[in-house]
C-alpha cells in the first residue's frame, strides 16, 4: 500500500444518506477476478440517464469535479454488502478520503486496507460541507486533522494502528504474518485442551 500522509483537494458531494455498496458498485460488475479497473462502473446506475447516456448533472460526470480526491456523503455511507469492490472502485476514481457523519463498519475496514481514508465528523460540519460542494480541504493524517475552507482546523478520530498503516504504507497481512509464533502457540494450546479445534478436525 502507498503511504498516505496528506490529501489536499476540492470536494465532490453526494448528499444522499445510506449510500449502500450496491450503489457504489452494482453487483453485476462483481464477476471480475481483478481489483483494478472498477472505477468505470462506480455509481453506474446513478451516472446514466434512462436512455443510457451520461447524466450531465451527476457529480462524478461534471468537468469541474475531475481529479477530486475527497468525497463528502450523507450519513451511513457504505452500508450493505461487504464487497471490497466498493473501495476499489472509489480509489480507481482517484478518491483518497470519504467524509460522512457516519460510515458503515465493513466499508470503513475495507477502505483503510486500500489507502482510502474514512473520516467521520460532527453532523453539523458534514452538513455544511454537503451544502457547499467543491470547497478545498486539507487533510493531515499525522495530525488526524482537517482544515476547513474558513481556516478552522477540526480533528477526526482515527485508530492508531490504522493511522500507522496509512502513514507508513504498512501492509496488514505482513504484520499478521510476523505474529506466526503467537498464532502457533494459540493453536497448540487449544489442541492440548482437546477443545473445539480437534473435534472440528475429526469431524471434517
Amino acid at each position, binding site marked *: 500500500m502507498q503511504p498516505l500522509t496528506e490529501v489536499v483537494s476540492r470536494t465532490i458531494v453526494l448528499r444522499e444518506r445510506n449510500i449502500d455498496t450496491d450503489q457504489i458498485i452494482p453487483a453485476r460488475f462483481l464477476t471480475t477476478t481483478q481489483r483494478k479497473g472498477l472505477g468505470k462502473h462506480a455509481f453506474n446506475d446513478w451516472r446514466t440517464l434512462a436512455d443510457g447516456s451520461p447524466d450531465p448533472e451527476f457529480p462524478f460526470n461534471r468537468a469541474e469535479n475531475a481529479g477530486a480526491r475527497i468525497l463528502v456523503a450523507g450519513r451511513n455511507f457504505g452500508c450493505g454488502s461487504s464487497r471490497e469492490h466498493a473501495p476499489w472502485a472509489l480509489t480507481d476514481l482517484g478518491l483518497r478520503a470519504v467524509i460522512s457523519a457516519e460510515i458503515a463498519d465493513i466499508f470503513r475496514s475495507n477502505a483503510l486496507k486500500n489507502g482510502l481514508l474514512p473520516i467521520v465528523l460532527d453532523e453539523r460540519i458534514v452538513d455544511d460541507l454537503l451544502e457547499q460542494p467543491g470547497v478545498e480541504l486539507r487533510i493531515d493524517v499525522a495530525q488526524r486533522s482537517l482544515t476547513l475552507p474558513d481556516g478552522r482546523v477540526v480533528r477526526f478520530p482515527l485508530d492508531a494502528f490504522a493511522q500507522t498503516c496509512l502513514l507508513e504504507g504498512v501492509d496488514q497481512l505482513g504484520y499478521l504474518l510476523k505474529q506466526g509464533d503467537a498464532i502457533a502457540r494459540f493453536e497448540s494450546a487449544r489442541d492440548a485442551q482437546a477443545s473445539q479445534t480437534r473435534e472440528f478436525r475429526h*469431524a471434517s
Partner: protein
Amino acid sequence: MTSQPKTLFDKLWDAHVVTPESEAAPAILYIDLHLIHEVTSPQAFAELDARGLPVRCPDRTKGTLDHSTPTLPVTANGQRPYVNDEARAQVDTLRANCARFGVELFDYDSPQRGIVHVMGPELGLTQPGQTIVCGDSHTATHGAFGALAFGIGTSEVGHVLATQCLLQRKPRTLAITVDGELGPGVGAKDLILHVIGVIGVNGGTGHVIEYRGSAIRSLSMEQRMTVCNMSIEAGARAGLIAPDDVTFDYLRGRPRVPQGEAFDAAVARWKAFRTDEGATFDREVRIDARDIQPTVTWGTHPGQVAAVSAHVPGSDDADEAKARDYMGWDANAAVAGRPVDVVFVGSCTNSRLSDLREAAGVLRGRRVHPRVRMLVVPGSEQVKREAEREGIDRIVREAGAEWREPGCSMCIAMNGDIVGAGQLAVSTSNRNFEGRQGKGARTVLASPATAAACAVAGEITDPRPYLTTLPAPHAAAELETA
C-alpha cells in the same frame, strides 16, 4: 471462585484472542471456520500467490459456488447457462484455487452445495462457540448458533487464508430483547424487519447484537437464522442467539458435528456459551412481539418498513421522498393493493425447507396471478432434495411458478436472474437497495408467506387470510388426485 459476569459475545471473543488489543494495535482474533465463494475470493488467492504463501489451515476453509451460478439446469449440450464468460471464469478460478491449495469445495457435483449460509449450518460446520467469517456480509446468519460470525472484505479473506487470523477492534454489545408471543401468520422475517424499522439501518453500527427474550427462544433454528441473517441490515456486523436445546437438536447427527459421546461432550461445552446473569450490554432495546404485524419494506433500504396493512409515509424528508419516487409510491399510499410483477422466494434469509413449506402452504391448490412471474429457488441441494421429496416442487410448478436450481439468484441478480427496470418485486431476500435485483428494479422485502400470498393476489396483500382459509374446493380436490 467468583468471576465477572460475561455476555455471550465476551465469552466468544475471549476464547479466540491470540493477542489482546492495545492502543497501538487491534486484537488478533483466531478464526475457526472460513467459508469462501467465487465472488470475493479470487483477489485474495492472487495475494497469496503474489507472496508465495500457502493456506494456513485448509481444513478450516470450505468453499461453495452460489453467487454467480446459474439456477437453470445444464443445457442439452451439457453447458451451464452462465450469464457471461466472466461468471464462468470466476467459478473456474475458485475451483482451481481450491484444488491448488487443498481446500474442500462443494462443487456442482456435491449433494451438499448451496448458498454459503445455508450450507454451513446444514452440514453442521457451523457450531456454537466458534468464530466464523466469510467474504459476505450475511455471515451473521451463523450467529443463530451462538457463534461469532461476521462478514469480511477480500483483503481480510486473504488474511484469514494466510494466517487463520484477523486484526479486530472489539465491538460494543447491543441486546435486543423480544418478549411475548408472535401472532398467527407473523414470522421471523416480520420480526427482524420490524426490529430494523425500530432501530434503523445504522442502529447496530459498531455493535454485535444479541437477540434475547421469549419470542426469540420460541423460534426454530431456521427462523433464528432468518433473524440473525439480517443483523447487517441494521448495521451490525454480527448477531447472536445463545445455543439451547433447539440448537443442539438441530445439530445432532449432522455430518460435520461430533457423533455419539463426543457430541454429548460438545453439548456440555456449548452450554457455557450464554450470557451470564447480571452481565451488562452497552445498549439495550426491548420490543414487544405483540406489536409485530406482517411487515414489508416500502422504500430503498431495509429500515423503511411498514405493516402490510399500513401506509407509506408522507413526510417530505428528502431521503424518504427519493425512496418513494424510486419505488413509484404516492405519499401516504396504502401498502396493500399495489400491483406486483415478480415474486422471488429464496436467498440465505428465506430459502430453507421451512421457508419453502411456508410458501407452498399458501400456493397449494392456488394459481399465481397471471400478471406475476414467480421464482422459487431452494438454498441448497439438500433443501431442494427434501422439498422435492415432500412434493413442494410440484405445488410450486402447478401454481405456475418456476422451480430452480440452488443459488443466490435474484437476491443479488448477478447470475442473470433479474427483475426488469420499473418492475415491482416482492422478495424474501434481505436487500431492497436501488437496483439490487436489476437496474431500475423495485424491491419489497417480505416473508415467504407474504411473498406467496402476493403472488396469488397479484398485489401486495396480507398473508393471513391465505393461511387460515382453505383454497377453493375444486382446486384442493384436483391436487389430491394429482
